[in-house]
């Protein structure tokens, strides 16, 4: 590998890392700052998942360049995360609805269990 392509790779990995770190942090800021549970749910499940995904891509690039094989271990984690994140979000939303967690307007969601 030439010095040029090594340089390019380093830049690429760095960019991925920085971007991913940004998304991860953004997700957590969303979790901390947004007004109610239903909005807070968006941060971690979307931004953070994307962030970790990016981090894993950086890892794939980095280790593939160092070894002679394409490092695909990380893809397994990525796959796992991308399958599970929506399910987690869905179940958490269900749980919140069941517990009648208040939304931003201040009222509990009444559509779930009318008449109770």
């Amino acid at each position, binding site marked *: 590998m030439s010095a040029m392509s090594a340089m390019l790779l380093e830049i690429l990995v760095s960019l991925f890392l920085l971007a991913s770190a940004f998304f991860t942090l953004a997700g957590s800021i969303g979790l901390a700052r947004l007004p109610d549970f239903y909005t807070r749910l968006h941060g971690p499940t979307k931004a953070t998942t994307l962030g970790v995904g990016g981090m894993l891509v950086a890892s794939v690039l980095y280790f593939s360049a160092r070894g002679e094989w394409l490092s695909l271990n990380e893809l*397994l984690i990525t*796959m*796992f995360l991308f*399958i*599970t994140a*929506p*399910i987690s979000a*869905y*179940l958490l939303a*269900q749980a919140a609805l*069941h*517990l009648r967690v208040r939304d931003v307007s201040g009222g509990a969601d009444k559509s779930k*269990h009318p008449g*109770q």
Partner: protein
Amino acid sequence: MTLLLIILFPLLGAALPAVAVRWGRNASAGAAAGVTAIPLALLLFETPRVLAGGTIEAGWRWVPAIGLDLTFRLDGLGFLFALLILGIGLLVILYARYYLSQRDPVGRFYVFLLLFMGAMLGIVLSDNLLLLLVFWELTSLSSFLLIGYWKHHADARQGARMALAITGGGGLALLAGVLLLGHIVGSFELPVVLRSRELIQGSPLYLPMLTLILLGAFTKSAQFPFHFWLPHAMSAPTPVSAYLHSATMVKAGVFLLARLYPVLSGSDAWFYLVSGTGLVTLVFAAYVAMFKHDLKGLLAYSTISHLGLIMLLFGLSTPLAAVAGVFHIINHATFKASLFMAAGIIDHESGSRDMRRLNGLWKYMPHTATLAMVAAASMAGVPLFNGFLSKEMFFTEALELHQTGTLWWIVPAAATLAGVFAVAYSLRFIHDVFFNGEPVDLPRTPHEPPRWMKVPVEILVVLCLLVGIFPAYTVAPLLNVAAGSVLGGPLPEFDLAIWHGFTFPLLMSVVALSGGVLVYFALQYRFNLHMIVQSPSPGRRFYNRGLAWLTGLSEIVTGGLQNGSLQRYLALLVTVILLAGAFPFWQLGWYSGSRSPGMMDGGSGVAWLLLVVSAACTVIWHRQRLLALVFVGVTGLMVSLIFVRFSAPDLALTQILVEVVSIILLLLALYLLPQTTPRESSVTRRMRDAGLAVAAGLGAAGLVWAVLTRPQDTISGFFLEQSVPGGGGSNVVNVILVDFRGFDTFGEIIVLAIAALGIYAMIGGLRVERPALDPARRPWAADSHPLLLRVASRILLPLALMVSVYLLLRGHNEPGGGFIAGLVTAVALITQYLASGIAWTEARLRLDHQRMIGIGVLIAALTGVASWFFGAPFLTSAFAHWHLPVLGELPLASAMIFDLGVYLTVVATTMLMLVTLGKIGAREEV
């Protein structure tokens, strides 16, 4: 080898009758007889060598570190006893075939009997005192099973317990005595011990050692005041009594004294302890025997009395007395076995053992009556029967006694008195049962038993007669070698003849005979023997009182410590740990090593902060149980992160898995429990607990500091170096688990298996009504298995299984291994239960968890055993690196198969625990 076979045949063959019983009672009895006949033949094959005075020895090393080796010897004494055990055992097996009723489980009887037989053979053939002790305990255990054979009878159970408690207690004393003896001599090997007479008798430990060994012998041989277990053991089936109380169990104590006679006897302590106890037992038990209305009760006390006689003979310490003792062992075995069998026949055919109801049976069973009369005559010591010969030798020796000085007449007088009683109770056995009027209110009309039931009695009675009439041609050679090995030196001159001329012993015999007749008829007709009611023995009362006292004491101790409050257990535990942990600090001072523990980096700082805060939150919110669980989850994650930080990936993997499994477990339990913990404890109590917790935390912190700052030359270097050359794997943690400390892991998976099966056994069938409303009094969500979750779980299952297989296979070299892989598989499968429910999952996943646990443990055990075939100790690992054409180098170690066993056990136990708990609250499937 022959010796080992003689012992192993009954011990291992004990399983055969249980199997053979499928083909009927005859097959079961036949199997038992075969297993007995083969070692008997092996033994008889050695007769010429033994009778020529030879000793056969064989030995294998077992636990040389504590002086316990599998060494056996067959000398005259061992031969005599082995012959009695196997010969009478064979007769008892035949007899029991007809004695036991259709309802009795025959197979089990023979299994117990053979186990007992093997244990007895072990005692008499052991050449190592510790080995002898092992077999000694085995006889206590197997006799417990035999005496309690009719377990539906309360008195059988109580008799069995009593026998076990008394002989087991004696066994404990014997263990201490033997350890002392081994300490004095420096070896437990009999040949060494038997050569060390001067050393032993000169030792200051001689008296305590002797007392302890005698305690063992006296309890086993039912000597006063430990005799009372034997009459209670009469609730056993009669074949058991015939076997245990004639030739075997109770003779073990006598055997032990005979075995150690050369080194222990001769001292004053021996004389007074052994002959004193023997004398008291002899007279006392003979007296009691006369008043027993129960046939077997009479025989039981007569047995105690005769054992006392043998003890007394050994206690006298003259060579001729020892010969008489051995002789009486033979004679008592023959006549007492036949008497017990006769009593069993009478009981079996008439339905009663009560001599107040059994009268005039001569008319109904003349054949049995004749046999019983011969045996009883032998018991009474009538001339021409074998009992007479040894009893006359006894009288002779009683007169020869010099140690008692001016009280020389005591022993002969007591001997004559006991002789009078013996004649009286023997006469009662005959006269009261077979004559003396008509039977009173018997359940059945008595009749002769089946032909083959009488054969064992006939054989024994013929032996009594042959020995009694032609002693020199029958028993003499056997007696010579047996007595020779007891004495361990030259035999005294003695003459086995019926007629010695008009001597003083003969006069004593005449007095005993006529006195006995007189006493019996006086009791029967002057004092109305049948009306005399004996109070229950004081021994039993003391025993029961002692037992109640012990139970009470243990209840107080247990109740005081274990009052059901988990908080108290925890407080006690932590206090003890604190004290144990504080001791070295207090002794050695505060330790702080020279090494700097290093600076904390930013990431670790965050993890540390999260760990501390979440742990604190768990404490703060512990009354809201669900919330506390969330914080526990954080703690677990952070601990796992810290493991990674300190380069322990195996620990991190295990930690994260165990964390989730425990959360599932706790949520399953929490479903059925209150959601909040009520406030129960007082302020002082909480302060105390807080103090304990802070102290324990500070202590742990101190330890960690000490470890982190000490110079870094630990044993881990050794393991790192040895991992690849010694275990064939580069993952040190896994190599330690499955190879270096494989035996520990083996024990651990067994514990795990037991725990899971225990949980299953306790709550397996339990069903609890599920709460209809959630904690906020609202109905539960309607969708029990959300579609999205179901679909996702099915995609994830193959992924997770692939990961677990990957972790299992590479575990020997990289982080992973059976335990971790097992947990991953279990969690993956449990996810299916979570997502789709029990019914759906179990319809598709037909795993028999219990069987899988068994298979897992078995695989691990077999891997361990396999190394025996290569001549290596249990669980020695073998490994090789194979070069395969395409895949490259493939490292294989036998430890990986062991790891597979671990894997299966872990999967099955985790599943079993979670699913069992999960089913408690499940709705009944319609």
